[in-house]
């Protein structure tokens, strides 16, 4: 059975996926702090790598006006 995923919430056959005998978590109970941790870490990593590339690779290799 294919169910239109957003046409009529509630009418659909319900979330069947968490079949692995586990609980169902509603929007109000769900606090995505794991997502915050992951995206936050990624952001920090981006900044560090960018700084590394900018100062170590780019700034030391680019032609300089002074010399």
């Amino acid at each position: 059975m294919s169910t239109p995923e957003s046409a009529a919430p509630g009418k659909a056959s319900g979330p069947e996926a968490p079949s692995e005998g586990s609980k169902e978590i509603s929007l109000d109970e769900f606090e995505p702090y794991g997502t915050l941790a992951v995206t936050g870490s990624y952001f920090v990593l981006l900044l560090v790598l960018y700084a590394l590339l900018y100062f170590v690779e780019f700034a030391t290799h680019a032609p300089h006006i002074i010399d």
Partner: protein
Amino acid sequence: MTFVNHYPKAARLVKANFIVAFVALAIGGFFGLIQALHRTDVFRGFVSSVEYYDVLTGHGVLLALVFTTFFITGLYQWGVTRTMEREPENTTFSWSWFVMMVVGTVMTATAILAGLVPGSGMSAAVLYTFYPPLQGHPLFYIGLALLVVGSWMAGGDWFWSYRKWRANNPDARIPLQTYMVIFTWLMWYICSLGVALEVVVLLIPWSLGIVQKIDPLLPRTLFWFFGHAVVYFWLLPAYFVWYSILPKLSGGRLFSDPLTRVVFIFFLLLSTPIGYHHQYADPGISLVYKMWALIMTLVILLPSLMTAFTVISSMEHGARQRGGSGYFAWMGALPWGRPAFVGCALAGIMFAAGGFSGMINASLNIDMLVHNTAWIPGHFHLTVGTATALTFMAITYWLLPQLTGKELKFKGLALAQPYTWFIGMTLMSNALHRQGLAGVPRRVSEPEYAGISYDVPFGTMAEMNWQVAIGGITLFVALIFFLVVVGGTFWAGAPATNVDDTIPPPLSGPEHSPKVLDNLKLWVGVAVALVLIAYSLPLAEMVMDGLFSPGAFPAPV
């Protein structure tokens, strides 16, 4: 009862599109293997160093243009049919766009592959960007034009279904999957106009010899009018999978439907006007427009971060429903034994890494460090080469039973495949990035030069070459796994009894979001206005001195 039983006509069409996509993937992937071995001087026996460019053109065209387009039209046909709950409106029309795309592909592929046949008198070693004054056989360009026109008709087919659906559902919100299809294709119509004009007005007459000279800048600019948006044309269908199917594969539900709509609107508005960021090194484009492109490119990071948030939180929702907990430990509760999930998740991780090298590319000044080096293929094998390609392969594992009514064959191979791809790409891509920093050029069959030694920042040249070669071999092995699973399922899959094909509704549905999100006319209007602001002056300036001048003669091919 699954998709193929409800919509047999659509299922046949989707399968036909997928088959063409996978044939292109197989040939293009083999060419990739040749390149990885040839460039690194591990093995140069497949082709000569001149024929390398025919192979490279074949690789770029068959993978980035043909494999992607056919998979996308198949995937979107599936999505439209299941959410509109209707078969294609007119079977003849549907097959006619498919046939037109196939004919175009065969023409283009013939022109390219003929370059490998001595004495054929035909070649098109112009690479998949076909910049003049490199010139290919007219068949190459005519075939590409047919491919694009066919894809326009495919979109017309879906709008047709949408209009019929709208007539029966005047007040309903557009179902999310159809919404994503519509926004991708609106963007596609706008951006592919650029490449269509380039090919039909400039390149075809020139390749036929009707005009002798060509202005190198105008076609390039029209190409990149299309060329940044085309990366979203590859990516949005992967997002379609990540937003609408991956949450379910993770055992959860999509976090937010309205957020998804907002993200797709952003991409419609911003994809085309930022094409100049591929022309940072071109003289003849004012710095003002390059700066504008830089800023807009940073703005487009916003929908990308929103995507990261929405997709990861949907996966976290699944993990927590499966009993996961903690800040990072929840990831362990995800279904790492399910091929479709694993492929999408690993594709997402690689895409995050590609986000970093993409930020470097986007930086007007730092880009000069990596421009035209191996860093660039290092970057886009993470994006189109993995985020898109691996997602497509992975979701095939989930779609095939719905399309064929058969069980997936060789499930163990299917599970090994995304992990193998991930390992191969980690090897190849990191080494290409580092070679790029050392100054190794891309698109060169023998990147070693007498009297020049590369200044390698991390590692050694030999080690990087081996990583590229071993990575390429590993990727090719993963590709074989994929083809064996797909072929095995098609020809020898056991009849499926209980196909898993449902998608639970989002946690936060569209009902409370403003209706303006679904206002297609408004968003197209804004998108066109932004394109006009970005492109009218520079294009007018390039056209004013005559379409084909200042002219250059074809470069020897």
